[in-house]
């Protein structure tokens, strides 16, 4: 349970994900950026990423889609931990809700002979609504619980998932899960791009929407309420804020984002199964958030990329080494877990604010050095 306690401590101790003004001169970019500036950054990032899909082979585009799906979940989780200080070990379950919501809707629509944009968009919408509703329920149940107790509640939800899918195996397909019939790329594009590339576009758009909406939350009235509830519940209550409502709202938003991530995963992999959303995956999401930099959206992106790239890098290394086949297959599955754990420990010691915190501190140091040289 080292991951839980570290994350809880990081969230509780006011261990600000972004550095305090003392060690980072200049304004904090995330908070001072105007809404229009954020749209511009998001649009530019999206265009760049979509451009990059042309340079990648189908497998790498598939990996990019996975990363985009994970970004939805880690961004939702980092807002929950960083803003209202609520720790969830259950975000895999919200992703699963989104994935099954997507799968059931998409299959039903395909069964009814519907295709085109409706077959693409409606399942995503249903997935987000289902995950948000589930998140509202869990949030309401957990709003009065703190730290490890809330973590325990969310843990129970993840652990219950296989039981739910096998109890309703007629609907949810049991341990096998569901095969998802999805809309393939539009006819006009079929000559130009592979289906994997089209899926990557869809996934990137979903991730961009999540990031922009959550960034908008930042210093909006809702964002201020959440920060107040986390930092000083008494001050929040005495400002007319109901902490219960704010916490439930944060949980709902976070779960909705994770649900969209699960839906993207179901869309890309054309499957929704309980095995994909187990406890270890849930913990990986949390580790990704902490390693990336708790509470920051760029940190959520770093964490998601790491989640996808690390196993790939490990596989590349073990393939290159002269090892017997059975050793390679054993390492492939387990080495990623080990390295993730080690990485968490190292990052917590070397850069307690995660990758993003380290980057911001580095930029601040460079900036202060340049201003010093220009002023003399």
């Amino acid at each position, binding site marked *: 349970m080292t991951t839980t306690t570290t994350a809880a401590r990081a969230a509780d101790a006011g261990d600000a994900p972004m550095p305090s003004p003392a060690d980072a001169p200049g304004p904090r970019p995330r908070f001072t950026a105007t809404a229009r500036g954020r749209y511009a950054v998001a649009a530019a990032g999206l265009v760049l990423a979509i451009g990059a899909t042309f340079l990648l082979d189908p497998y790498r585009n598939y990996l990019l889609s996975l990363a985009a799906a994970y970004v939805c979940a880690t961004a939702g989780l980092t807002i929950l931990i960083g803003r209202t200080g609520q720790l969830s070990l259950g975000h895999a379950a919200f992703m699963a809700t989104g994935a099954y919501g997507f799968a059931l809707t998409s299959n039903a629509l395909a069964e009814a002979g519907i295709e085109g944009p409706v077959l693409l968009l409606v399942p995503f919408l249903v997935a987000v609504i289902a995950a948000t509703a589930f998140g509202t329920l869990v949030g309401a149940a957990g709003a009065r619980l703190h730290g490890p107790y809330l973590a325990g509640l969310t843990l129970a939800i993840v652990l219950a998932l296989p039981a739910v899918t096998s109890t309703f195996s007629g609907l949810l397909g049991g341990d096998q899960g569901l095969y998802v019939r999805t809309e393939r790329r539009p006819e006009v594009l079929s000559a130009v791009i592979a289906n994997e590339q089209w899926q990557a576009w869809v996934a990137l758009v979903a991730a961009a929407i999540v990031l922009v909406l959550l960034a908008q939350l930042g210093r909006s009235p809702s964002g201020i309420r959440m920060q107040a509830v986390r930092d000083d519940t008494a001050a929040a209550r005495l400002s007319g*804020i109901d902490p219960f409502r704010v916490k439930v709202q944060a949980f709902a938003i976070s779960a909705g984002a994770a649900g969209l991530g699960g839906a993207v995963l179901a869309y890309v992999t054309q499957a929704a199964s309980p095995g994909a959303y187990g406890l270890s995956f849930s913990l990986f999401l949390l580790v990704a958030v902490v390693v990336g930099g708790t509470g920051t959206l760029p940190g959520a992106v770093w964490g998601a990329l790491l989640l996808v790239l690390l196993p790939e890098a490990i596989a590349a290394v073990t393939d290159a080494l002269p090892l017997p086949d059975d050793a390679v297959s054993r390492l492939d599955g387990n080495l990623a877990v080990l390295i993730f754990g080690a990485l968490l420990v190292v990052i917590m010691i070397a850069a307690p604010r995660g990758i993003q915190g380290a980057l911001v501190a580095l930029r601040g140091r460079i900036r202060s050095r340049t201003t010093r040289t220009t002023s003399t």
Partner: protein
Amino acid sequence: MTDTLTATARHDAQPAALLEVSGLVAGYGQGEVLHAVDLSVPAGSVVAVVGANGAGKSTLLRVLSGLLPAAAGTVRFDGDDLASAAVEDRIRRGIVHVPEGRHAVAELTVDENLRLGGLWRGDRRELRADVDAAYDLFPALAARRTSHGHALSGGERQMLAIARALVAHPRLLLLDEPSLGLAPRIVAEILGTLAHLRAERGLAILLVEQNVRSALSVADTGVVLNLGSVVAARPSAALLDDEQLRHAYLGF
């Protein structure tokens, strides 16, 4: 609300008090802290609650703002009994509590902290005007509007806590130990601002203070609380003149 805002507000001179507390009982768990407290705050007046440590002063404010439930008794505000109303409801009606300890939200800027006070109204333009008005009252805060709560000095935090409460449009301000740990100059500045608000807006203030002399110097009425019971409620000047009472309960 009355326009006679001179320092002569008395119980008998007011038609009906803004806040009328009677038989208020409250405590923590098994321990009863307040035993049938009666108290009234006329509109536009300043009432100081004084007494030794552990007299129940802060508990009284916590019950009045709704942070702590009342076990018995009534809290009439503007005619309605709010004894079991939620904190948010009381704020909407105009009871705003500035607790001891200067709660500045650490990760929010001064400006965001101030906006926090009026978010419940939902009118952004009005909120902006209220925040700007708060800066006019506390110019020291205007200079620090982009600083985070954790970067403020004790005096700035206290000003911020009071200013945030004012953004909520209070009719009755519950102030807990505003002078604790602050330089006399800053205390004088804060008290001066509050006197101005009372004259300007008819703001009523229920002030809890350890510093009896400075509290009674700004209050119309002094209420002496001892071990959870009111032992005296008189005009401030009369309290200061009563040597026996002073020796017995106020220690000077």
